[in-house]
Structures are given as C-alpha cells and as structure tokens.
C-alpha cells in the first residue's frame, strides 16, 4: 500500500511532510540551536542570525522551543490515533463474529461515545486526574474510537457476506483464521484512511489543549503553547504566531492528504485508477484517457 500511496503526488507530499515532522519529533531537541528553556534579557527580539524566529516574552529562542515542542505534539497525536485504532477497530471486526450480545453492547457503547465532546471531556479528565497529556490523549483516543469501530465493522460486514467467506464459515474455519485470511486485507485500507485522518485530528486536539495550557507543565514547549504565548504579544511581534500556526496547519493538512491518498489507492477502484495512470505514463501510449473505473472495480 505504501508503494501505491507514493505513486500519487498527494501521497508523496503528505508522506514527506509527515516524515519531516516525525524527524522533528525524534531529533528536534538535538537540532535546537539553543537551550529551549534558557531565558535571556533579549525579550521579544525580532528575527536575527542568533534567533531565526526571534525570542519569546522571557527571552527564549523561539526556533529552539518550536523544535523541542515537536515531540509532545507528535506523540500526543499518535497516542490518540493508536488508542482509537485498538479500542475501535478490533471490537468493530469482532462485533460481526462474536454474537448478538457483543454486537449490541459495542454498538450502544459506540453511540454513547460519539455523543461526548472529546475536547471538553479531555479537559474534565485532566481536572479529575491531574494535569497530564498522556491521560488526556488516552481518553480522547477512546472517544474517537467509534469512527474506527464503524469503519472496521462496515468493511467486515461486506466481507463476511461474500460467498468465499460464507463458504469458509460453512467449512468450519475458525474466526481467527477467517479474519487473518480474508477480513484483514479488506478492512486495512479504510482503517488506514481513518488512522491518517485521526492523526490530523490528534494534532488539532493536542494543539488545542496545550494552547489552553492544559496537559503540560510549563516551561515545557509545545506548538499550541507557543501559539498561545505568541498571541499575547501581537503588538510587539505580529508575525510570531505564524510559525507554530503554520506547523500545526501543515501537519494536519498532511494527515488529511495522506488519508485522501490512501482512499484513492484503496480497493479495486484505486487499483484501476493507478493502472490507468500507469498506462498514461507508459511511452508510446496515445489516444484518449481511459474511462474512469466504475465503482465496484474492473475485473
């Protein structure tokens, strides 16, 4: 699937951006030109050779803080997405096979969770359990899980009604084998789309919470925290919020772009699209573009 995603321009752009962000998360503190926590007398300084993005209200290097703040944002977003994946997708698949009681309970649970506003709920959890991003992101992941539950369940239901799976069931194949052999490959693409989308959502949530000063203890830098801090000094540095805002925006956009790319290359329709693109690119191929693949695939 990765190869197919990379065959699309949007996929390549999204993967590049997300890879860069991942690198920032891994190496950001090492790349920081200065100590992100070291204050100085050079308060709210403009862009200069010593401070590429200027300094904040306590004289700390903005670029260093932005780089050092990447890890919290990336890990938070991944925590949301992974939690949602595990808590949502697995019961989504199993709800098709584990009987009516399990199906009924998980469906009602998903309906309930959908009704809860996750940002508000995360704030409430922090108020209850103390100021920490880990618990807030875990809870947010649980609240986002119904998306994975529904996507995985819908895909599994489609596969479960196909003749070859029904044949396997009649032949007495165990559920685990059916899931591994037939369901997993069909469920993976839509779940991958949801995952990429949720990573973007996760960035928005982490940034929103840290913007409000929730989840991390100062002076730990975060993208949202930097944005909030810079907005207080618009009179002195009107351009200062641009860098953290742009970083958040581009990362969220890349997550969504990747989701689109995965969707475009998933399933038969996606494969047909790629085949048609490949045909167009092959030298010597002339004539009108092939007709778009009808939904349902071309065999």
């Amino acid at each position: 699937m990765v190869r197919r995603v990379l065959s699309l321009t949007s996929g390549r752009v999204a993967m590049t951006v997300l890879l860069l962000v991942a690198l920032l998360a891994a190496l950001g503190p090492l790349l920081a030109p200065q100590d992100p926590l070291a204050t100085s007398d050079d308060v709210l300084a403009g862009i200069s050779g010593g401070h590429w993005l200027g300094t904040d209200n306590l004289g700390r290097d903005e670029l260093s803080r932005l780089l050092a703040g990447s890890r919290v944002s990336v890990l938070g977003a991944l925590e949301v997405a992974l939690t949602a994946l595990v808590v949502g997708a697995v019961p989504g698949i199993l709800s098709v096979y584990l009987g009516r009681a399990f199906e009924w309970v998980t469906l009602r649970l998903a309906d309930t969770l959908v009704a809860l506003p996750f940002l508000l709920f995360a704030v409430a959890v922090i108020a209850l359990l103390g100021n920490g991003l880990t618990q807030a992101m875990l809870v947010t992941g649980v609240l986002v899980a119904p998306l994975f539950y529904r996507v995985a369940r819908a895909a599994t239901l489609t596969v479960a009604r196909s003749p070859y799976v029904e044949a396997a069931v009649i032949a007495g194949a165990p559920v685990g084998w059916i899931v591994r052999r037939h369901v997993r490959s069909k469920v993976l693409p839509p779940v991958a789309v949801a995952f990429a989308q949720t990573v973007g959502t996760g960035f928005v949530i982490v940034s929103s919470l840290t913007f409000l000063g929730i989840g991390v203890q100062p002076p730990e830098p975060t993208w949202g925290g930097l944005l909030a801090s810079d907005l207080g000094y618009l009179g002195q540095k009107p351009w200062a919020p641009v860098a953290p805002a742009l970083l958040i925006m581009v990362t969220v956009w890349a997550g969504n772009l990747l989701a689109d790319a995965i969707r475009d290359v998933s399933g038969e329709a996606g494969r047909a699209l790629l085949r048609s693109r490949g045909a167009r690119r092959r030298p010597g191929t002339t004539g009108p573009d092939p007709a778009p693949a009808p939904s349902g695939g071309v065999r």
Partner: protein
Amino acid sequence: MPRRPRSPGRPRTAALSAVLALLLVPVLAACGGTGAAAGGAATLKWTSTYFPAHWDPVVSGSGAQFRELALVYASLTRVDEKGEAVPDLAESWEYDDEGDEITFHLRPGLKFSDGEPVDAAAVKAAVERAQRQQNSALHGDLTSIESVEADGLDAVFHLTQVDYQIPQLLGERVLQIASPKAAKSPAELDQNPVGAGPFVITQLIPGTKAVLEKNPDYWDAEHIHIENVELTSAPDTSTVVSGLRTGVYNFADLDPSQAGSAKKAGLDVFVQPGYNASNISLNVNKAPFDDDRVADAVRYAVNRQEFVDKLTFGYGETTDQPFPKGYVAYDPESENAYPHDPAKARKLLAEAGHRAGDIELDLVIPAEDPAAEIVQSQLAAVGITVNIKIDKNWATPFFAKDLTFSLYSTTGRDSAVQTLTAHFGPDGPLNLSSPYEPAGFEAAVAEVRRTPLDDPHYAETLQAATRAGLRSKALVFTYSSPNLFAKSPSVSGLPKNPAHLNWTGVTIGDTR
C-alpha cells in the same frame, strides 16, 4: 439635453430611503465606538479581569474584585487621593479618649436599593455577618471589633484593643454594606446584590456580564454622571485593545504587554496608583525551608529587576516589601537587605549541606504564569531545581497552608496594618507558614494600632512594624505590578485614589 422623465417609483423609493435613514442612523450610531448608548445615556462598558465570582461582599473578601462590587455597595468610609479615609455612608466619626471605641454617624435619609433604610442596625448586621457567616472571607480582618451598638444613625464600635486603623479598615475593601433584608439569604445575595452604592444591578449573568443602572438614591448621586454600566469578564488579553478600538468596551483592565498597542490605537492608557506587590511564598514549617539558610539562599537568588523587565514592560518596579516604594509603610531601612547575589546563595546552600541539584521543589500555582518560569530559571542558576505544577484547585491547599512553595500577588489594603498582618501575622491568609510569626512583629503592630494616623510619629512607627515583619523568612517580595487601564478618550479621567476606581465626577461623552 432633455431630462429623463421621473419614474413613478422614485418618490416612494426616496420616502423609503428617508424612513430607513431615520431608523438606522440612531441604531448605527449607538453601535459606534463612543460611550453614548442607545438613547444618548452615558454607558460605561468595562471589561475586567476581576469579574466577581461572588457578589456577596462577605464572601468575595477584600481582594481586587472589591472595585467591581463597589459599583453596587457603599461603605462607611472610602479613601481620597492620598489614600486616607474620607466619609462615604458615614458623614463623620470620632474615637473616644482611650481609642478603643469609635462612633460612626451615618448620613440621614439613605436607603438600600430594596428600600430598606441605611442605618446603624444595618451596619451592625453587616459586621456581625462578616464575623460569623461560615463562608466569610473577612473573619481575619475584623479581629479588632468586639461588638457594634446600633443607635439610630450612630454605629458605636467597641474594640478589642486600641486601634486607630478602623476608619481605614472599614472602607470599600472590608465593609461594603449590603441590605440586611437581602442578606438574610446570603446565597440569594451572592447572585442578586443589594447595596446602597452608586449603581443598581439590573441583570447578572454569573461569571460573564453584569448590567447596572444609576442608583438615584445614592448619597452622592448628583456627582455620578454615568447612567449605565455594562461590566463584562475580560476576554483574552490580546483582544482587549481591539474591543476598545471598536467600541465593544470603553474601559478595560490592561495587561502591560498591550499598552503599546493601546497607545498606538489612540486610547488613553493610564496607571492608577496602588499597593500591588508580588511575592514568593515559602513554608518555613516544611523542608527545605525549615533551614533559614535555604530560605535566605532563595532571597539572594532572586533578581527582582528581571520580573519588572519581563512582566511589566517598564510599568512596574521592584520591591522587597509588601508595598511599592514611596508608600507610607515602606521601610527605607530594610531596602535591598537581600540583594541579588547568586554566589552568596550557592554558598548558603553549601553551608546547609546541599549540593547543586540536591533540592528539588514543586512550585504550585493556579494558572500559567511567566513569573513562575522566571523563578524557576533564577533558582536553577543557584542549583535549586523547580518543577512548576499548575493546580486549578490551588486556593484550597494555599490557604490551608499545605503548600511548601508558591507565588502570590496582592493588590494591598487601605489599612497598612491589614496588609502587614495578612502577610506576617500568625493567622495571616498570605502567610504560608502560619502560625509562624517573626519575633517582635505582634508588639510592633500593636504600637501602630495605638498610634493615631495624624500623629507625627505614625509613619516611623508603621515602618518599624514593616521592618519587624520583614524578619519573616516566609516571604520573598519581588516586584510591584502596575494598575494599568485603558479607556476611550470619551471617558473622562478618574480620580487618582490609590488602588480604587472612583466613578464620582466621571463623564462619558462624544469626543468626535
């Protein structure tokens, strides 16, 4: 060229336009940036960072939000531009010869906004409620008052000790007087305030907005030229200036970081004199501050100028006492007793047996505060590791004296003795180390209470009490932040009453 014949529709269009203009012009004018509201009434649109959570003055206490409550409630006294007590509901007062009894004579014919009379019985009820109500925040401020005797318009205060601070004390901060009838239900009063102040509340959305109109029965109503007040809870600091520019507000508390933008926008930016002082609170009953050398090391580690430079944008000043420099209680002898000296701080820590990094402290604060990050960085420089912990429920452990290390900022009190006892007294709410009290402080304070305010030795006696208080190891004063405000030029200047906002004589008009 022949004129085009008039369309038969035109007269109707013209008439319609005229009607629309007549209707819309006043409406749009009212939406403009001046202080005149619909109908031409002068409206104060004040956005405040201290929007009261409680409107019962007994519950609200004597903190900064007293300014907002003073819109509704009047007191026995108020302060003038010198910070001295002057008549408010009481037109005069006198002490007995011993100085342990004071009689306030109330103005005749006054009534609360619910029609109840403002008399000595109401004053007595207000004092007793402040002393006895379970959730009163004023218990500690009224320890000098033994009882109040009501005699028509004369309220006789019997004191537990000689105390010439009472007229200073019973101003807007400590004894805003509510209608005794309304106060029978304190919970109701908390959200439906009834006082005898310059304005009456007509609408209150808790935590968000209060709408008030002029109280025609206020004793000085003829000098109140503001007809309506819209008090709102201040939004994010970065949007206050925009709100002022566009006429959403015409008066606002201003963060120093916004002063430049406000000035550029043509707003009046001004500093109201006051008694603000910020401190680092140490609990000397807990390790490591139970060792004086560690507490002193923190004192020497603090660079006060950094707080002023980074937090007040030049509007504040350093202070090492619970008042700003220049205040009558500020003791020049104690000035700079602990200068910034990181080397000495490190030496003291070494003497106490602590190597760099040995001491790790949680600095517990209620909300993000750059001051905490400055403390963290300054103490790191002498080898003390500080972890900042934000606790939204900070007030409970702070006032229960359970914390070891915290920050506090006071807006001061009209009575200097009240400020001193609040910080250094054994039961002082701002003394994180209660019941610890520096030696000699109690006697020094008693001496101040015994000294009339017009005594030539008053300032000297008061400063001696400050000196005694500053022997406390529990507080490290850092800087005095400004009482900074911005207003539309349409709002006239306010009297410079220290720490107060007095609306008497203030006008709001069209400056265009």
